């Protein structure tokens, strides 16, 4: 019993220590933003690795999610003779929820894990220490551009996901199941609000982008510098990011809608 309480206390202390370190690191990353904005080629390079290389998985997944939504939506709506509103159902599901959430989950798996592994390995192979000894701050030089790239990429990837998903819904609903094309697009246009729906979705994806990238760079920077340590850190990035996305999504949805 005593061991259990001791273990619980130890876990609690470790959690709060890590939370504290993560917050300090977040502050240090943000402090480096003005300086790194002047060195935009560094951000462009990371935008490629973090954002552009994630586009393919976002495109494919977005299209399939849209197709499934089109299929399921049609099967439900057709019972009520409301299949003309399929466009509204698909687009609202994507723009409000699935776009930001699924894109962020995929982003955590694709880019977040890669960021953690890269930074963790840089630590394990003393590249970060070498930078410090060359009087170069690794947080500003390595972490800040990666963080900014995640922050910028995430909303764009979520937008691509939603757009492609709507096309997937169109492909199944209109192309295969015979919903009227004009109804699909005009009802969507009439029902989706720029501020209530699209802007709120964008805000969600910005929040997810910040959180996922923050977790990814922190886990990499805080990793135990061994192969096992980096492997654990990479797993933690995906698990913690996914839980954070789902938890925050509930909170944001409760506030927004």
């Amino acid at each position, binding site marked *: 019993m005593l061991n259990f309480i001791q273990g619980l206390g130890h876990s609690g202390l470790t959690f709060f220590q890590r939370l504290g370190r993560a917050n300090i690191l977040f502050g240090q990353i943000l402090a480096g933003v003005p300086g790194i904005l002047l060195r935009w080629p560094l951000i462009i390079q990371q935008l490629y690795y973090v954002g552009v290389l994630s586009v393919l998985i976002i495109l494919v997944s977005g299209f399939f999610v849209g197709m499934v939504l089109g299929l399921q939506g049609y099967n439900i709506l057709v019972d009520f003779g409301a299949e003309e509103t399929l466009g509204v159902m698909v687009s609202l599901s994507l723009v409000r929820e699935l776009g930001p959430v699924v894109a962020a989950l995929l982003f955590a798996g694709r880019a977040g894990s890669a960021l953690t592994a890269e930074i963790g390995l840089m630590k394990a192979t003393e590249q970060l*220490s070498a930078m410090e000894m*060359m*009087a*170069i701050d690794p947080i500003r030089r390595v972490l800040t551009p990666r963080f900014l790239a995640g922050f910028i990429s995430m909303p764009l990837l979520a937008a691509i996901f939603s757009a492609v998903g709507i096309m997937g819904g169109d492909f199944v609903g209109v192309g295969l199941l015979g919903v009227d094309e004009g109804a699909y697009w005009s009802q969507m246009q009439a029902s989706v609000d720029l501020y209530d729906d699209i802007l709120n979705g964008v805000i969600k994806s910005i929040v997810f982008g910040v959180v996922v990238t923050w977790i990814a760079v922190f886990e990499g920077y805080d990793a135990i510098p061994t192969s096992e340590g980096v492997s654990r850190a990479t797993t933690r990035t995906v698990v913690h990011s996914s839980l954070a996305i789902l938890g925050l999504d509930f909170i944001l949805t409760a506030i927004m809608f």
Partner: protein
Amino acid sequence: MTDTSTPLVEIRNLSFARGDRMIFDGIDMDIQRGKVTAIMGPSGTGKTTLLRLIGGQIKPLSGTIKVDGIEVTKLSRSALFQLRKRMGMLFQNGALLTDMNVYDNIAFPIREHTQLSEKMIRTLVTMKLQVVGLRGARDLMPSELSGGMARRVALARAIALDPMMMMYDEPFTGQDPISLGVLVRLIRELNDTLGLTSIVVSHDIEEASSIADTIYLLSGGKVVAHGSSKALHESGSEWAKQFMNGLPDGPVPFHYPAIDYAEDLLSAGSK
């Protein structure tokens, strides 16, 4: 004007602990300007830790470390970075940035700290590569280099900003005889031609003592002997004798501390 008669690095009463384990227990050390000083000792005596303390990457428990008259332990981060621009460090595995080729690795500190034109940077990088004999390898990626070549590239990068001192962390470990010979020669030549002060952390007695002007022997958190290689070889100290001659038993015991052997064997049946 810096007083050149004083040691470049002065360590006084330095203590450092990791958890409950004392790594250094009140050590004193002087690193003389223009000389090659070797810090030697068995594995796990904190030789690398000492370099990190001198570079200000970690803080000691107590004591002072002065580099060129500046107290490292009390410096702000920006002042520490200014001091580090005058220090070079060669890491054990080279620590080259794996996403850049050889040329960009050496140009990295120059680009970060100066506003020089690319043409000027190219000249500087070519000069540094020529010194380490790898001018022809400038377009290779770190993954394409052998261990010895990676260390030479890292050495070129460490001297890119013309530091006043160089710290070498186990530069001879895992090298073939040719690479070893090249590194030994480079360390001595760079020290003498560039007017550096070098600190070589190593447990390779032969190589380190062949280039070192002064050797410090560390063990159990203390400096157990220091002096020239010749003086240590002729020293009456048991520590120095065991280490310099590579004897398996002596003040550093062959056996890790354990309970009595016979008792251990007899107790095996009862477990």
